């Protein structure tokens, strides 16, 4: 029954065995590469933990920097980093989401918006030191914000804006056309479609993008050195909550600051070996903060996927 062109069963089996071997080879290579990457990260983390093991303790979190390594802690750096992140998130989220909504939902598709889009994507690749220089000229001197938490937060917001915009656009685009049509079909305006449907349904993706952006910003050193982070700060910024009316104060925004990467850099560059343990411990904590933020991003995405699956 077999025609001359058809393979015999034996030939089919022989060829198939070889092709399946290739399949297995790829799986092995893939696994090797994957474990190689993960192992490097794990070893790095373990090394930091081991080196800094002597410093982990409550004191390390509640102490200011000190000339004595064993009394030094990360209090001012951790508080500085947290406050900067708050400013960065509060600026990058509304600006980034607004820009993404405009580009995705409103902007006409022409050469001009095309150029803007390419530029936004390219901004993500601009070296962070360049943002630092820009911020030094613009925020610190031009706007006279000084070497403050506000200036640092704005700088890092600028840095992660492209990440937030790209992530937001992607999650806006993921909202099916059918849902938009349903809303338009009921007589909604473009803004109503955006605010009642597109935006709420893409919250998961937007927050994920924001957190991934923040976890990039948290480790950035170059731009905040450029705008003048101090490496030795033995005080905390003024509290945002006050005893008198109106109970909230924005004084902390104007405060000088230090941040985790700066503190680590400072300790590493000291000749005294004892400070290396401090640097390792702070490094492990910073890495832990980053991993925690990524975990939160994954959890948010998972939650929203469960609620809304198209």
């Amino acid at each position, binding site marked *: 029954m077999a025609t001359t062109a058809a393979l015999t069963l034996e030939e089919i089996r022989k060829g198939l065995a070889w092709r399946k071997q290739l399949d297995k080879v790829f799986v092995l290579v893939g696994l090797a590469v994957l474990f190689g990457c993960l192992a490097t990260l794990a070893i790095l983390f373990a090394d930091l933990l081991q080196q800094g093991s002597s410093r982990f303790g409550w004191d390390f979190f509640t102490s200011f920097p000190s000339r004595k390594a064993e009394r030094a802690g990360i209090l001012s750096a951790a508080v500085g980093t947290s406050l900067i992140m708050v400013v960065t998130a509060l600026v990058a989220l509304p600006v980034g989401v607004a820009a993404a909504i405009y580009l995705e939902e409103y902007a*006409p*598709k022409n050469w001009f918006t095309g150029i803007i889009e390419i530029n936004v994507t390219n901004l993500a690749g601009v070296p962070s030191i360049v943002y630092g220089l820009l911020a030094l000229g613009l925020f610190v001197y031009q706007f006279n914000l000084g070497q403050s938490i506000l200036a640092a937060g704005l700088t890092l917001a600028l840095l992660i804006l492209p990440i937030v915009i790209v992530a937001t656009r992607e999650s806006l685009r993921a909202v*099916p056309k*059918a*849902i*938009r*049509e*349903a*809303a*338009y*079909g*009921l*007589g*909604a*305006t473009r803004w*109503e479609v955006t605010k*009642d*449907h597109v935006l709420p*349904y893409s919250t998961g993706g937007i927050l994920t993008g924001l957190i991934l952006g923040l976890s990039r910003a948290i480790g950035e050193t170059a731009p905040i050195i450029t705008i003048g982070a101090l490496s030795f700060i033995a005080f905390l910024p003024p509290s945002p909550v006050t005893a008198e009316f109106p109970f909230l104060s924005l004084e902390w925004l104007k405060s000088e600051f230090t941040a985790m990467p700066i503190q680590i850099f400072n300790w590493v560059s000291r000749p005294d070996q004892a400070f290396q343990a401090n640097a390792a411990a702070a490094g492990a904590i910073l890495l832990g903060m980053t991993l925690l933020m990524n975990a939160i991003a994954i959890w948010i995405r998972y939650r929203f996927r469960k*609620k*809304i*699956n198209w």
Partner: protein
Amino acid sequence: MDALITTSNEPKLRKVAPMQGDTSTQKVEKPSLSIVLEDRKATRANPPKANAENLNFWYGTNQALKNINLAIPEHQVTALIGPSGCGKSTFLRCFNRMHDLQPDTKYQGAITLRPDNVNLVGPETDPIEVRMRIGMVFQKPNPFPKTVFENVAYGLRLRGVKNRTELAERVEKALRGAAIWDEVKDRLTDSALALSGGQMQRLCIARALATEPEILLFDEPTSALDPIATAKIEELITELRQRVTVLIVTHNMQQAARVSDFTAFMYLGELVEVDATSKIFTNPSKKATEDYITGRYG
């Protein structure tokens, strides 16, 4: 008893669909298809709710609709049939200006809505105003990922209804109208995505009904559903004509035969023939129509 076709005394329909011979006395011949046509009382065309007049439509430079003239009789079901790409969905979407969401589309001519004679596709007419008056049910059920209640209430909220009691009443009325109230009355706060496909589509019908549209458009509403869900939707559509004027696009000729009072056959962007459904399916006057309904192409 065979349905009597007395459309000839309706001047509007006659104008757009000239018929050969005196159809009022012509007996309907034996069905050439194995379709059981319902015995309908309403084969006389009501006065038109909307009139397409010399309607042309372009996607870019591609002309998708060519000089369409069609009357949509009020409180009756008009079906649009034809092979894929014939422009039936394009025509349907002109009625609520869905094409305006895409760039580079162009309307010419008019769809006049009675009684106020607004030209639905006129450049001076606001597409949102049009969509406030004309509802649509889509091919794939597309409920919002919100609760059942919020899905139906959304159109009302857009229209400024804030009173909770009024919202609840009108949502219930719409859900009853879409024959889904009994199935969801205990699940109003559940996500609409938890419903079955057929329930979702009836929810979408309720969502469209809640705002009491003047015309309800159906774009192949059962093509994503199983036969039982399809049967329920079809039954619903035949009942809906008492409340609203219905225009339905369908790929399924049996469906057109079952649910509609009038059927328009479109081919290559043109309206070939429109007549009472029983007439179209038993004794079409154009060769192309006959070829299509007997399955020679399409």
